[in-house]
């Protein structure tokens, strides 16, 4: 039976329902406490040990989660535990974990896997650590753009990367997060409002960064990435996504240290409908209604 493609959305919903059922009403969520409540042993791998980011192990009716600590990031470690909880709590993952008599499952990535079970466990982890309505409520008091992502990451004890992805998923305005390294884009998440802007070209993995962007210039100096330096500049939606409108965006850039990648948060400046006033009427008619949902 093919795996349900809607499982990513279902995974977030399952995580949020789990939080609701347990009557957890405050952030941050404690995945270790949840695991212990479920009678799952949680074991930290030695910091000297690289290899897999997490493992779910079963012996008969007893379970354990081992998580990597070689990456000195509270957010990364908590996400790894929450990811394994996803494998434990999501329907159907028994076939993934035990396809041929396995009793151990190992995980390596985060949000970049193409395996639908791994991807759904990632989204479960995001939903568990940043559940709605708690996350959306927190967004109201967190400002905008990179400042909001950093504030929410502190509140949820999640990595900047995972928080930025969740922020873009939940926000109702025109926002994108872009992960890049060197001259290339690793991946990009767009808010629903951004996806509805007509005529845009969606960024693909491996696309080249446009040389006029602040992100491109920032990435030319590897030290700035490693030292977690930051910059910001004015950009336009065309710089990143093409299209017919030259709408202004803020481009906030931060290096992610030893991870070697750069996070960029793009936010539309002002109200897109006001920008439309300067454009021709026919195009305005095809654009404006989509932002009035």
């Amino acid at each position, binding site marked *: 039976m093919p795996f349900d493609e809607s499982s990513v959305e279902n995974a977030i919903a399952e995580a949020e329902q789990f939080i609701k059922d347990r009557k957890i009403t405050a952030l941050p969520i404690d995945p270790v406490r949840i695991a212990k409540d*479920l009678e799952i*042993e949680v*074991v930290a*791998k*030695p910091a000297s*040990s*690289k*290899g*897999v980011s997490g*493992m779910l*192990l*079963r*012996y*008969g*009716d*007893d*379970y*354990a989660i*081992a998580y990597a600590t070689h990456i000195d990031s509270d957010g990364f470690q908590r996400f790894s535990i929450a990811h394994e909880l996803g*494998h*434990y*709590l*999501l*329907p*159907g*993952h*028994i*076939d993934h*974990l*035990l*396809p*041929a*008599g*396995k*009793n*151990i499952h*190992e995980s390596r990535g985060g949000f970049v896997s193409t395996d639908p079970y791994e991807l759904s466990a990632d989204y479960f982890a995001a939903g568990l650590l940043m559940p709605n309505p708690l996350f959306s409520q927190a967004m109201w008091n967190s400002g905008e753009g990179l400042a909001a992502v950093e504030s929410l990451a502190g509140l949820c004890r999640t990595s900047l990367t995972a928080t930025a992805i969740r922020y873009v998923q939940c926000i109702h305005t025109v926002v994108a997060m872009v992960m890049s390294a060197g001259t290339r884009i690793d991946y990009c998440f767009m808010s629903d409002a951004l996806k509805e802007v007509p005529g845009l070209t969606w960024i693909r993995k491996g696309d080249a960064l446009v040389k006029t962007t602040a992100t491109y210039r920032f990435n030319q100096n590897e030290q700035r990435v490693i030292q977690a330096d930051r910059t910001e500049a004015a950009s336009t939606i065309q710089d990143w996504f093409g299209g017919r409108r030259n709408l202004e965006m803020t481009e906030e850039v931060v290096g992610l240290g030893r991870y070697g990648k750069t996070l960029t948060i793009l936010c539309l400046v002002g109200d897109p409908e006001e920008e439309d006033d300067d454009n021709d009427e026919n195009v305005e008619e095809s654009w404006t209604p989509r932002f009035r949902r």
Partner: protein
Amino acid sequence: MTKSRPSEVFPERLREAREKIRKLSQEALANRAGLQASAISHFESGTRKPSFDNLRRLADALEVSTDYLLGRIDEISGAATSDQLNRDYDRMSQEDRDLADEIFGILKKRSRQRTSER
């Protein structure tokens, strides 16, 4: 067992354990396991796949082992699990394998302790 996927074996094992071994209604089992009665119906018809947590709750409520519900053993109680481990080491580092062995040791000890307490 001829069926290989755990979720294919599970529906008939669940029904067998509930009806023939424990003689429980779907509702009674749901109450014992802390699940909704409709969930039991979906599990037995195969329209919904269980999670590991579901498996564990059902095994506990039915007083059978998870391995029995997965079709890995034919005896209802779980002492035989020590022979069932068949781990896939292919992609793991030696360090991870050693750690997994250590954790399996802890879980094994706990499993035996629980079995002896029953």
